[in-house]
């Protein structure tokens, strides 16, 4: 299969420009462009350059270790992996969570959404949006933002802090906690802890509303450019609650086509493989998922805040729902299909997370102590959650000795693989063709990638191989590792 600008017909005649590493994103990625002598673009690719082999080395481990291990895939959204794995293991146990356990997990999850969205918007993306995509590289970062608009930077830092504190109080630790366990949670929330969080939540709701205002204002000011930037049409997918509401913790899968028509709805994610398949391309360690019945050329889709806000029928908290309606109606709905619309949608979700936290903190169940449930033991477990970056799928099989015998993960960023590639190809068409390549121009490509808030670290859980030989030497010049490709195209050690 071939997508436009994916593969140049004569790469050897072209010059290569690389963005390496992609910065102000999480994880390890690079972009390569192939241009001819007139700077016309012939090939654009986002490569995911790291590998982990996680699905393989989790095998043979006891299932209860998994929620704690998997979160080490990603330090920005560890809670998402922690909870998706826990949900899969609930299924292995056949457990239906107690109300307190489910609400504590939801609290942890919304804390995670809040901190991750704040981090992405303020610490990583705001420099592009506030200063301009081609602005001076030296100040195009959070330090520059702190110098230019200290109030904005400070609110960003404090929003993130609040989300991290929720995680600490529900999971025991801000990064890589242990709060969720198969069948429930292992820590209740004390009255003091609840009150501590209650103290600041109204401020967080207010600042989240302001954040929606910031991105809305930026759209107003740059409407034509923002609507067109890196724009492409795509199908979309995400979880929705049984009544069609946005629900980032649990629901059924809903997919819509490019025109917004439903493709499937309330599909039981326990059978996700009936709907989704994946392709591998030689130039990236990240796979390319697509909807099976449409095939790889037609069936790719996007996930994440933009699709979730547009995909659901309503948001079950009033302020965010109000913002959602405004977003969808704004300029005849064009921002809701724009790549930069991801930022706007992300801030609406941050507001929804803050409101949800407020509601959960007012719910008496949150102080309950009935934390664990049991049921009839199963062999297969699938856990799906809407992580900050999109739909996250964890799938395990566990044998009668309680050991994991198979694992498959489709992380949020992987779903967006084709979409990110489409978006940067569109930017290349819009801005590059025929122009001299400058640092500021190259940043436009990264601005498009950042819209998706990719977690390239999560997306690199698989292993790959290279047709080269390499040796690793220690500081004294002794070879300590090496790798080469054998006659069968297989990597072998020394």
């Amino acid at each position: 299969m071939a997508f436009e600008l994916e593969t140049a017909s004569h790469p050897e005649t072209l010059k290569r420009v690389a963005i390496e590493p992609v910065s102000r994103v999480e994880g390890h990625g690079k972009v390569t462009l192939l241009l001819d002598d007139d700077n016309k673009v012939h090939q654009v690719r986002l490569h995911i350059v790291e590998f982990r082999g996680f699905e393989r080395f989790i095998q043979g481990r006891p299932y209860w270790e998994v929620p704690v291990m998997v979160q080490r895939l990603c330090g920005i959204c560890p809670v998402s992996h922690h909870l998706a794995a826990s949900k899969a293991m609930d299924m292995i146990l056949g457990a239906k969570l107690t109300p307190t356990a489910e609400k504590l997990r939801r609290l942890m999850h919304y804390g995670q959404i809040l901190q991750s969205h704040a981090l992405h918007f303020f610490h990583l993306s705001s420099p592009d949006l506030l200063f301009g995509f081609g602005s001076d590289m030296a100040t195009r970062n959070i330090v520059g933002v702190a110098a230019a608009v200290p109030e904005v930077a400070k609110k960003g830092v404090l929003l993130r802090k609040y989300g991290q504190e929720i995680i600490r109080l529900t999971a025991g630790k801000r990064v890589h906690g242990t709060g969720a366990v198969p069948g429930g949670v292992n820590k209740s929330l004390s009255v003091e802890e609840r009150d501590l969080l209650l103290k600041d939540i109204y401020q967080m709701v207010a600042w989240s509303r302001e954040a929606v205002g910031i991105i809305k204002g930026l759209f107003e000011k740059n409407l034509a450019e923002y609507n067109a930037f890196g724009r492409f049409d795509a199908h979309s997918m995400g979880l929705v609650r049984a009544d069609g509401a946005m629900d980032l913790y649990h629901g059924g899968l809903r997919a819509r086509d490019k025109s917004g028509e439903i493709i499937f709805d309330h599909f039981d994610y326990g059978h996700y493989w009936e709907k989704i398949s994946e392709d591998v391309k030689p130039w990236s360690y990240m796979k390319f998922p697509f909807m099976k019945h449409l095939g790889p050329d037609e069936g790719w889709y996007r996930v994440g805040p933009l699709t979730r806000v547009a995909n659901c029928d309503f948001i079950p908290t009033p302020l965010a729902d109000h913002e959602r309606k405004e977003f969808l109606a704004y300029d005849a709905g064009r921002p809701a299909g724009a790549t930069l619309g991801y930022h706007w949608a992300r801030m609406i979700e941050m507001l929804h997370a803050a409101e949800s936290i407020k509601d959960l903190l007012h719910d008496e169940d949150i102080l309950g102590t009935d934390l664990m449930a049991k049921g009839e033991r199963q062999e297969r477990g699938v856990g799906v959650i809407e992580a900050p970056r999109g739909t996250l799928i964890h799938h395990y099989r566990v044998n009668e000795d309680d050991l994991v015998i198979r694992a498959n993960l489709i992380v949020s960023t992987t779903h967006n693989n084709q979409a990110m590639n489409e978006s940067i190809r569109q930017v290349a068409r819009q801005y590059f063709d025929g122009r001299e390549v400058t640092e500021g121009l190259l940043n436009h490509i990264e601005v498009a990638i950042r819209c998706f808030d990719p977690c390239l670290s999560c997306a690199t859980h698989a292993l790959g191989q290279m047709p080269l030989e390499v040796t690793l030497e220690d500081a004294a010049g002794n070879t300590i590792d090496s790798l080469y490709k054998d006659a069968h195209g297989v990597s072998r050690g020394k």
Partner: protein
Amino acid sequence: MNANTATPAKTKLRVATTSLAGCFGCHMSFLDIDERILQLVELVEFDRSPITDIKHCGPCDLGIIEGGVCNAENVHVLHEFRKNCKILVAMGACAVNGGLPAQRNHLDLRDILEEVYQTEPGLTHGGIPNDPELPLPLNKVHPIHEVVKIDYFLPGCPPPADAIWKFLTDLLAGRTPHLGHGLLHYD
């Protein structure tokens, strides 16, 4: 130091940070110093780091490395940091001893490749990625001190924000960094 003649802008410590085979959790823990980050940027300036757009490290006072070494590119970046940074720090379990990614060290690379990219039942078209743009993965994940000299090790997965803060403030004050009880974690 020379309090009378020092111009504040000149005394800023130049710091570079990077993530090799890590999950960015250590960088998150760094950001977990919260408001103190606004204080910190008065005292340090960032060179190459995931939060800036500087793609290659220049001369720096301090380099902070998250993650171990799992591919040829990691090795390259690690050498770049060692060459440019007066002090190099291993931040977190992955940099110190390989961490979770090193769980793959007892497995055969071929098996993992095939399972993930060829025999996984969810795949329509399998095939092991092999483009020259992808850095060669190493057979094993290595701690960074096996490859270059490291001056300080901050343990923990991740090290607590307060440990990172203590380390930095000690260094800024010209003291030998010392993490006392409560700041050393081995989780």
